[in-house]
């Protein structure tokens, strides 16, 4: 996985949480809903924002793909398959 993608994902994920968590302290393998109390709407917003920042078309994914992304690593792995260098 591209390191800059992970950094961006951590920052974007921390930004949608309702509580303060340092991006570096996030556990990539923790369940986003169960562990970080991510609501379904915040999950949608997080993925929308991350796709916009990384210039990955959200249309690469289906509604079922999104439902299957349970951890931050699931998200970064899925996006890494479509991303160019972040910010390009």
């Amino acid at each position, binding site marked *: 996985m591209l390191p800059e993608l992970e950094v961006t994902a951590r920052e974007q994920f921390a*930004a*949608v*949480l*309702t*509580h*303060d*968590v340092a991006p570096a302290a996030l556990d990539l393998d923790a369940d986003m*809903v*169960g*562990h*970080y*109390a991510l*609501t*379904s*709407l*915040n999950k*949608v*917003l997080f993925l*929308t*924002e991350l*796709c916009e920042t990384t210039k990955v078309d*959200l*249309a690469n*994914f*289906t*509604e079922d793909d*999104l439902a299957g992304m349970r951890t931050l690593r699931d998200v970064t792995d899925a996006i890494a398959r479509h991303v160019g260098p972040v910010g390009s």
Partner: protein
Amino acid sequence: MTRETFGRLVTTEPATGRITFTELWGARTLDLADLYRRSARVARWLLGHGIRPGDRIGIHAANGLEWVLLDLAALRLKVETAGLEPGKFTPDSDLLTRYDLTLLCTDRHTEGPGIVPISEVTEAAGRRDLDEPALPPVTWQPEDVTTIKFTSGSTGESKGLGATAGSIDSSLRAVQEIFEHGPGDDLFVFLPLSLLQQRYWIYSALLHGHDVTVSTYEAAFAALRQVRPTVVMGVPAFYETAKRQIEARQRRGSSVTEAAQAVFGDRIRYLWTGSAPAAPSTLRFFVDAGLPIYEGYGLNETCIVTKNHPKAHREGSVGQVLRGKEVLIDADGVVHVRSDHPVNTRYLYAEPGSSEQIFAPDGTVRTGDLGHLDEDGFLFIRGRADDVIVLDNGKKVIVRPIEEQLKADPAIAECVLFCPGQTELVAVVSPAHVPADRTAITAQLASTNAALTSDERISRMILADEPFSIDNGLLTSQYKPRRRQILAAHHAAVHDPKEGIHAP
């Protein structure tokens, strides 16, 4: 009386307006006239399946074109619909039996007698051989049931309520009177179409010639910035999320206007919120950002009762009473709603006794909410009657304002107050994250207590190990805490005086 709404919906091809469907893969736009013609093909396809006026069909699918076509086709045949939200209902033969369905259309992979994949609707809508013959004329009388609403309630299985054509007609007229939706408007809908209120905006488009956009839940934020709607139909949880997003963009250097436009587009006329109480700070945030937001009030059993709107709004209220509704406040301060055209007078599917708890024989609804009307007729909701705790000294404590104060701290996602033994108030707190920030939560307990009278003070706080969620059954689908289930889950700790964080 329904001639001007349902009469037109079933007989008149719209002259203007478009409908856009957005999913993650992209968007598709149709003229409403095209939608209308396609719905006639779907109606004939339903007739081919043996569906007849008075039958009931189930629609179990994510938001999309087929949902709308089936709903409109059913209206044109005088067939009832049951909107069944995927995730809440399993599309199997039991569902057909339980809700007396003749046909069930679903977008899930399943098979069985009477179950039809929704892809067949897509195909039927494109079949020109289904352009004839003319559909048999239908008339919806005010008391006719058009659809079954499902309401989560506070316990167990969903209750089913038949919504009458008269109640829908009355609500559509009242809302149009105050908001005057018309050409130039594009109303954005992303909440499930299984909720009747979300389909109102499609009916409104067909009647008043404005555009409407229907999005899947997952595509909502991406679609908003592309579609640039004039009105967004949301709920408080959605606006809380949008608010945080706007604030995050401001921290990155955008002005509030730029940040708000990045989320909602640049054409917003107003934002609609309802279904649950919105935090005053959230409402104020959007108003200050230049996005008027109007809160209203209503239950599944009453449909929309009050609404703030551009010509009459008052901070802290849920608006004035709409035409066709009457709000009565009883001696205990409980809000009752009388309607010229009630949604119904009883549930169609519910536990015995449920209907009598909420419906009077004439359809007047005991809402269970505490409220008052001010001198100008604006309704203010203070909490739930069930949420009034009577202490052993006779003092009544309304818990919602106390809970709201506790929740003001970002370390607390949700909290519910209980009163074991009528002697002390105990809060069960759902932390905003795990592990919980005990220091912040304890400090919030102290500062909340400092502003309360002695009877209202919280003596202990039980921290839930697992945050309340829809999945663990402690929040409703609209993110409201389920008090009975929360108490059951923490019964031992709530009733043990040694448990929890004790107030300093």
